[in-house]
């Protein structure tokens, strides 16, 4: 009855009254008052009345409200969905909107976008699997926006963001959203800052849903979408962006890169190459953020391939660790001149270690060479030097792939750098750290007791020099801390069975320390005293162990200082 009698008559009245306020109000009433099932069945009639209304009526709000009601109705229960299909709701609504927009060529952007936004929400609820419908809506929106340039009205911008966020929220999968060919086209109409906001929204959606991005094509499409974050847009610079915001942005890109993964090494390599291509365009401000995650992704791939047997029948084109290392070299090289030498040095050393694990001696040597060059030419800050020396020594200590000559060259350089640090205490510590370069467990041919002792003695000389300098400069010798540290190293190698470290040498070092501590001219240092005490406790524990260990330590004598 409603359909055949009531509605047509009511609508006739509405149209005939020709009063825009009344029309708007009455249409609104009809939509809100009557149940949704009725609306579905009478869509033709209802929508047919719209173009007949006064041109000044805010028809877009009317239509939006209708669509919103129908969206909620669809969301309320799955059982009602077939009805939507049966009455071809989507087609009718989309035509109606098209007609309205055509009839009002001066409709502002906000109006257009609001209409399409409501239609899209409707589509997502009613036809979630019809990506083509969603794409159609976006396409229609793009056509309407074309020729108008970037959107400047902030309300319209918000609506576009809502329009673009809807598929993300619905599908929970950026890859599905990417299948909408018109999606990136809508994005183009936003101004630059908003594009970046959208890009961040997209990345957050990926992180929240743990979306796997697993092919280089998908990476390509995704980077195209978020290109506002990856590189400067033509003409604009980043000066306007707050530094903290910029860092956060780039950190989210870095996290995103870590999410790219495919089990198949060939595809993974393609992904890495695609990422590299894109991040290169990012320029010096972005590379320090984007290069490290790419390097570590590549190193993970190397490790994955390590486990696999080298395929003798594999052709030259297949993915091998060697290939990846070549790529890594190029990737890290992009950091040169930015300048971030410590970062580059660290990354080179990581690669060296990975090459070591792959038994690729020349590759490992090359990475070390690059690291050393950086150290010599670009790292002049004292604190940075200390950190880098530790990394160099620590990495070198773990390398087993080097032949004698290569190892000697690198070790010699490392000890040289250590002895040239600015402050004597730092020199001393770095030099005694180098002693470990000559003593590697699990490799009997790398246990050179003599060179260990030479290192420790060199450290002692530096410690002595430090004392003399302190005496000359300040009138009292400095703390004995360094001597106690060296003593501990003597004990370390004594424990490990270095025949060059004799009980006599340990004993005389202890005596030297005791003398220094009791001397009036030495600055008292509670920390050093505590260290000596704990060291002697250690010796005591070892003696108490009995057996071979106890015997070894037994001859070491120590008289604690009377308080």
């Amino acid at each position, binding site marked *: 009855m409603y359909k055949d009698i009531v509605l047509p008559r009511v609508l006739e009245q509405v149209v005939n009254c020709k009063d825009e306020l009344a029309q708007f109000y009455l249409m609104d009433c009809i939509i809100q008052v009557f149940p949704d099932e009725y609306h579905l069945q009478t869509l033709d009639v209802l929508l047919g009345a719209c173009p007949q209304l006064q041109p000044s009526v805010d028809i877009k709000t009317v239509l939006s409200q209708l669509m919103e009601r129908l969206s909620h109705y669809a969301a309320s229960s799955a059982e009602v969905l077939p009805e939507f299909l049966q009455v071809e709701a989507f087609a009718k609504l989309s035509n109606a909107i098209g007609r309205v927009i055509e009839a009002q060529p001066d409709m502002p952007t906000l109006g257009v976008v609001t209409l399409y936004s409501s239609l899209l929400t409707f589509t997502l609820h009613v036809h979630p699997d019809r990506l083509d419908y969603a794409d159609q809506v976006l396409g229609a929106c793009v056509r309407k926006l074309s020729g108008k340039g970037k959107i400047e009205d902030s309300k319209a911008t918000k609506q576009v963001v809502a329009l673009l966020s809807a598929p993300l929220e619905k599908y929970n999968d950026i890859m599905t959203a990417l299948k909408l060919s018109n999606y990136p086209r809508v994005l183009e109409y936003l101004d630059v800052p908003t594009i970046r906001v959208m890009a961040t929204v997209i990345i957050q959606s990926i992180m929240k849903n743990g979306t796997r991005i697993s092919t280089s094509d998908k990476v390509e499409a995704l980077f195209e979408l978020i290109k506002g974050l990856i590189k400067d847009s033509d003409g604009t610079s980043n000066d306007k962006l707050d530094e*903290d915001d910029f*860092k*956060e942005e780039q*950190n989210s890109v870095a996290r995103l890169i870590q999410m790219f993964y495919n089990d198949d090494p060939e595809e993974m390599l393609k992904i890495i190459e695609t990422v590299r291509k894109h991040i290169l365009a990012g320029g010096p401000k972005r590379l320090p953020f984007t290069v*490290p995650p790419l390097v*570590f992704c590549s*190193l*993970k791939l190397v*490790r994955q391939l390590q486990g696999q047997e080298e395929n003798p029948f594999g052709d030259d084109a297949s993915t091998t660790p060697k290939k990846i290392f070549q790529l890594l070299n190029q990737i890290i090289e992009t950091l040169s001149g930015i300048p971030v030498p410590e*970062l580059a040095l*660290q990354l080179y050393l*990581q690669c060296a*270690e*990975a090459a070591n694990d792959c038994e690729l001696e020349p590759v490992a040597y090359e990475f070390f060479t690059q690291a050393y060059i950086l150290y010599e030419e670009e790292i002049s800050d004292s*604190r940075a030097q200390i*950190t880098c020396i*530790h*990394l160099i*020594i*620590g*990495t070198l*200590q*773990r390398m087993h792939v080097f032949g004698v000559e290569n190892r000697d060259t690198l070790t010699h350089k490392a000890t040289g750098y250590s002895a040239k640090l600015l402050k004597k205490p730092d020199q001393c510590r770095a030099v005694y*750290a180098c002693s*470990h370069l000559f003593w590697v467990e699990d490799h009997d041919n790398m246990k050179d007791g003599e060179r260990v002792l030479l290192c420790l003695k060199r450290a002692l000389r530096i410690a002595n020099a430090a004392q003399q300098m302190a005496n000359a400069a300040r009138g009292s010798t400095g703390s004995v801390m360094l001597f*106690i*540290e060296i003593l*501990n*190293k003597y004990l*370390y190698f004594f*424990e490990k069975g270095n025949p060059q470290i004799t009980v006599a040498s340990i004993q005389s070092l202890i005596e030297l320390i005791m003398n220094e501590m009791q001397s009036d001219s030495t600055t008292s240092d*509670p*920390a050093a*005293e*505590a*260290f000596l*005490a*704990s*060291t002697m*406790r*250690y010796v005591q*524990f070892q003696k108490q162990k009995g057996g071979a260990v106890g015997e070894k330590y037994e001859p070491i004598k120590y008289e604690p200082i009377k*308080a």
Partner: protein
Amino acid sequence: MEVHDYLKTLCPDLHITRGEYDEDTRYPETKTLTIGQFKLGLCHGHQVIPWGDLDSLAMLQRQLDVDILVTGHTHQFTAYKHEGGVVINPGSATGAYSSITYDVNPSFVLMDIDGLRVVVYVYELIDGEVKVDKIDFKKTASTHTAH
């Protein structure tokens, strides 16, 4: 900065020592603090060579004069007890790549310090499941003199 802020929301009393990738140079190389009856020392560990070597770490522990040394760098959980005390490495909370450790399982540690006893709870994510283990340490009444 984001991670720093996040950690502060977990507990405002936050102590940090510098790792080799930390750009913030204000973080110290080592730190010591006292909790209850225990003296704790903190050091990332890239400065202690050989990396992960328990004897070298014990030397640092003696130098800092602490009962418990908390260290990292290797991304491998270890808890090492010796006569001088305990060395704990909680591993990597994110399971990040390490040149030193293969197959890093994300892990972290909670320490419950109660009187002379400390219980270490280690949480590890292994094959998608969280596994918890517990290790007890007791400190013998102190034999060394107070300073």
